[in-house]
């Protein structure tokens, strides 16, 4: 028979039909099934009794409520808590993957250890806690005895206001070292901005949920800014399926088509670092139209109109300055944004019922710029959006009890008189509490490290600092480094001694005021599972350590353990009154509620409140939106200051140059834009590099749960290489195609990445994701991609001194 197509088909079909009627294939399939069921190498998770434990996620400053499903004593799933004020049920991907940070032995330290291999090799040997305490206490005591307590330093990544950070700071005070260094974050920029313009040392509080027009200058609303659980929940609310019901408009100001920029109602793309100019351009349009909130400006602000100081000197006001320097045409030259866009945007902002302009830079992990914050805040003041519902609120700090006074010994008093290594708080950095870049610099510059013993808490500065690797170099020079990290991160790998903390699911910890939230909030997490390894809550370790050092240091820590301290501080919440420890979904915390006179707080004694606080993990005060004006602003003028007298005073004490301010005279005390300086040569380095953050990749000291790598597209990470996003036009200029391997070179270093052609990248800018390029941790994270921080060349931000990490000059060289 000749095989034609026709009889071929007939044969096949006939054959198939034949097979269908015999029982053989079915029997065979069944056998296969039974055989596969007996494969021994597939894990069979043991079952047991199911339970749910409520706690709080502490992986970012967001403070989402979580509920952890347990089977016997194993935690098997993390979920968001719908009965929690911050996140209302959802959480972010990092929090969702949290169990992979708990149950991964090669990611963690399983007990106290000392280094045996080379620094950075990650080779450690188990020791006992007693030995660990003996080593560290001995070292600190010896330095104190020799009269050098200032050679002890601490780098603390815990958020300001938390009990852990309060204890660490206290330890440094008791020991007698001024070198307590915190990592700069967006919260510091907020704090400083609030001090210079409002005289309030308080967190920023944006009433987003009640606003109908959110003008976001750089906040990665969908990239993890603020309290991500809260912001994304608000995002969902803003985007009702029925567009007629959408009351809130979102405008994103950012140079790259991030998720936020893409999903916003309008995306405005100024050049990186020119946000201040854009904000002032909008202010110009509003002032020129005469439609600003004249009442607010007249009653509650200082420095708007021209004025005269007591010594008779005339000063130009904010109005004059803005009208002179920031017309849409002028601003367009700086920012690249079309003048008509500015005019339209300013009108929309002004006409909205409850607009708010918010300031940020990606997530919260990195600092912003003070003058940019001031420009955005000036826009709020101009339109009377401060201390108004849906605007910027000015709540009081959380009434936690301060830790009790303690006596220092002579060694400590002498030590504390020594200057800080980072020069924070000096005339050059008057408002800055600590400056880790100066700290690293001081060590790198001296032939012998002035710091003998460095303790690192909840931080991984060797990876997270945008400093071109400066901190890493400093680490190598410090004779003795102690890490309290639960994870085998880059900094811990450089340490000589490890006193591992528990992970967030194994310990009590507190969460003070998630970034940007508009009402006072205090969260308390509790151990979901018992520590699975020989690790201890870092708060307990600090107390133990102080006791091991003994003398006045030991007596400064009269507590049994960390929990006592937390409780003692929380007593302040009870004494202040008015807080709630349970949450009713029907009354979201951001909805203005009129507390009636007879309202009971839901507890009748402090012990009762403490019990409920531990069980529920939350304390908050419902939103009290607008507060009485008198005494609200604690500036020298008692008003909101367009012209900051505190900056003026700082300039009097030092000079504008010492403060690194580019402009002179009145402008220096007000929001302004100045072209950032860079020592790099533009012709050698024609492009600039901007690190960017993503919500589905952890970029701070917490490692990414490996689950997250499933969510990353293969245009961000492919095998061992990460990608740099560049505009196709820019790539064409250098003859680069999708996937080409390039060296991104800056004056301080080079990293290799593949090119991703992305239309949403601003031309001439190279965008690199932060969070790749680990050398620590385990096979899931190690050696994947590169860390752009390693090539950042950052100048210092005027006044604050924080790194200007968004302006590194680079060039691309094809490999």
């Amino acid at each position, binding site marked *: 028979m000749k095989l034609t197509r026709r009889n071929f088909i007939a044969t096949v079909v006939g054959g198939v039909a034949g097979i269908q009627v015999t029982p053989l294939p079915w029997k065979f*399939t069944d056998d296969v*099934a039974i055989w*596969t069921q007996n*494969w021994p190498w*597939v*894990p*069979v*998770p*043991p079952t047991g009794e199911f339970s749910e434990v409520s706690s709080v996620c502490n992986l970012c400053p967001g403070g989402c409520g979580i509920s952890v499903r347990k*089977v016997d004593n*194993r935690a*098997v*799933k*993390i*979920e968001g808590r719908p009965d929690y004020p911050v996140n209302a*049920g*959802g*959480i*972010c991907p990092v929090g*969702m993957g949290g169990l*992979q940070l708990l*149950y*991964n*032995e*090669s990611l963690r330290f399983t007990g106290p250890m000392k280094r045996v291999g080379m620094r950075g090799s990650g080779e450690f040997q188990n020791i006992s806690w007693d030995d660990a305490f003996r080593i560290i206490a001995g070292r600190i005591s010896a330095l104190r005895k020799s009269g050098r307590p200032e050679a002890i330093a601490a780098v603390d990544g815990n958020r300001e206001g938390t009990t852990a950070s309060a204890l660490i700071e206290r330890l440094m005070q008791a020991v007698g070292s001024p070198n307590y260094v915190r990592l700069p974050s967006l919260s510091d920029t907020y704090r400083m901005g609030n001090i210079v313009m409002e005289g309030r040392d308080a967190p920023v509080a944006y009433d987003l949920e009640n606003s109908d027009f959110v003008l976001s200058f750089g906040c990665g609303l*969908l990239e993890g800014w603020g309290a*991500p659980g809260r912001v*994304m*929940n608000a*995002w*969902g609310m803003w*985007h009702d*399926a*029925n*567009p007629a019901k959408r009351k809130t*408009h979102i405008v994103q100001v950012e140079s790259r*088509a991030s*998720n936020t920029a*893409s*999903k*916003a*109602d309008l*995306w405005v793309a100024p050049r990186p670092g020119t946000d201040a100019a854009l904000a002032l351009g909008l202010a110009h349009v509003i002032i020129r139209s005469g439609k600003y909130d004249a009442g607010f400006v007249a009653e509650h602000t200082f420095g708007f109109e021209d004025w005269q100081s007591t010594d008779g000197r005339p000063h130009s006001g904010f109005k004059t300055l803005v009208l002179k320097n920031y017309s849409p045409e002028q601003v367009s030259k700086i920012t690249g944004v079309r003048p008509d866009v500015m005019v339209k945007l300013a009108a929309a902002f002004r006409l909205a019922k409850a607009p708010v302009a918010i300031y940020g830079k990606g997530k919260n992990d990195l600092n912003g710029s003070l003058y940019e914050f001031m420009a955005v805040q000036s826009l709020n003041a101009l339109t009377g959006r401060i201390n108004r519902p849906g605007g910027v609120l000015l709540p009081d700090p959380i009434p936690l009890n301060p830790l009790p006074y303690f006596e220092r010994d002579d060694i400590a008093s002498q030590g504390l008189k020594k200057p800080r290594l980072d020069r924070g708080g000096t005339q050059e950095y008057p408002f800055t509490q600590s400056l880790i870049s100066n700290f690293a610099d001081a060590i790198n510059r001296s032939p012998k490290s002035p710091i003998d013993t460095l303790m690192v808490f909840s931080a991984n500065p060797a990876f997270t600092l945008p400093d071109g690797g400066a901190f890493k170099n400093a680490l190598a020079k410090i004779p003795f480094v102690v890490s309290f990290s639960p994870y085998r991160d880059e900094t811990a790998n450089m340490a000589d001694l490890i006193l591992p903390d528990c992970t967030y699911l194994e310990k009590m910890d507190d969460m003070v005021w998630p970034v940007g939230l508009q009402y006072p909030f205090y969260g308390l997490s509790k151990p979901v599972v018992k520590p*699975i390894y020989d690790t201890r809550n870092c708060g307990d370790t600090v107390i133990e350590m102080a006791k091991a050092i003994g003398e006045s240091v030991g007596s400064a820590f009269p507590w049994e353990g960390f929990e006592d301290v937390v409780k003692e501080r929380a007593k302040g919440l009870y004494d202040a009154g008015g807080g709630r420890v349970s949450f009713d979904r029907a009354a979201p915390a951001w909805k203005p509620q009129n507390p009636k006179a007879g309202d009971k707080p839901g507890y009748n004694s402090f012990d009762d409140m403490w019990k409920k606080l531990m069980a529920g993990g939350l304390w908050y005060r419902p939103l009290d939106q607008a507060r009485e004006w008198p005494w609200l602003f604690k500036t020298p003028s008692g008003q909101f200051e367009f012209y900051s007298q505190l900056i003026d005073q700082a300039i009097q004490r030092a000079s504008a140059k010492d403060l690194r301010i580019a402009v002179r005279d009145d402008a220096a005390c007000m929001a302004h834009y100045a072209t950032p300086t860079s020592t790099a040569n533009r012709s050698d380095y024609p492009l600039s590099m901007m690190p960017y953050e993503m*919500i589905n990749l952890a970029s701070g000291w917490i490692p990414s*749960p*490996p689950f*997250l*790598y*499933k*969510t*990353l597209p*293969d*245009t961000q990470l492919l*095998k061992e290489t990460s990608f740099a996003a560049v505009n196709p036009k820019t790539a064409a200029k250098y003859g680069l195609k999708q996937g080409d391997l390039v060296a991104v070179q800056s004056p301080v270093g080079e990293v290799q990445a593949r090119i991703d052609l*992305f*239309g*949403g990248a*601003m031309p001439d800018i190279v965008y690199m994701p932060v969070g790749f390029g680990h050398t620590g941790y*385990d096979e899931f994270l190690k050696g994947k991609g590169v860390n752009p921080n390693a090539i950042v060349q950052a100048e210092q931000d005027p006044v604050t001194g924080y790194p200007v990490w968004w302006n590194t000059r680079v060039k691309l060289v094809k490999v």
Partner: protein
Amino acid sequence: MKKENDHGKPGHKYGMVINLDKCTGCGTCMVACAAENNVSVRPDQSDKERVITWMRLYRITNGKEFPDTEVSYFPRPCMHCDHHPPCVSVCVATATKLDFHTGIVSQIYTRCIGCRYCQAACPYGARYFNWWDAYFPKGKGLDRYLSPEVSPRMRGVVEKCTFCHHRLMRAKSQAYAEDRREIEEDQYQTACTEACPAGAITFGDLNNPEHQVSKLTKHPFTFRLLERIGTEPKVYYQSSRDWVRKLGDNFLPGEYQPVVNKTWMKEEWSTKPGRDTF
């Protein structure tokens, strides 16, 4: 569907509506799904042809030049195609079936012989083959977070989204224990739905007019992926942006009909909204 199940008695038809305006592209749904369903995580997750993601985020862009570029995301679970799911028709081992009582397309790993016909047949790429055993290396202790509610898979079988079927079982046992016949809307919700921080995913019974999903599917912005090949997905999407809706199917030039002036619950809106006109 109504007619086919249980001799004419209308059953459940579980489905999902994902609002792409709300979707932030965060990927929590993907992580939640993997964590809930014991999905294996290997050291290299960048080989997208091998990596297992029952729920997968597809990143799309509108292809415009700077500064008009936009990105968006399609979170894609299994579509649980109705009537004749392509994967079910080709399965030689009856390892995957459409359950007429629930509308869920199941996958029975122990029956699966790993021929991967279904994977080839699925137009949505929702099926994944286990090239290796589940990755839980000794000494790491990663297997300690595994949930006993879902069996981990072995090398050589295909797996996919089950609409978190074990959660339906859980809800059923609960109802049985409490002597109820019916399961309420909030008692059976999938892991991805619950996890989404923006509330972008709505899950429920498409046959129950009281459930949110039944209402949302009537919205003019609602569409399905590759709707015209007739797979009748039970996963719906919504977007107010034309370019996003357009990418839901392969349209010939001029074939796509933008949603203009359609009214939904008449009085509420009647203009074309979205970013283009802001």
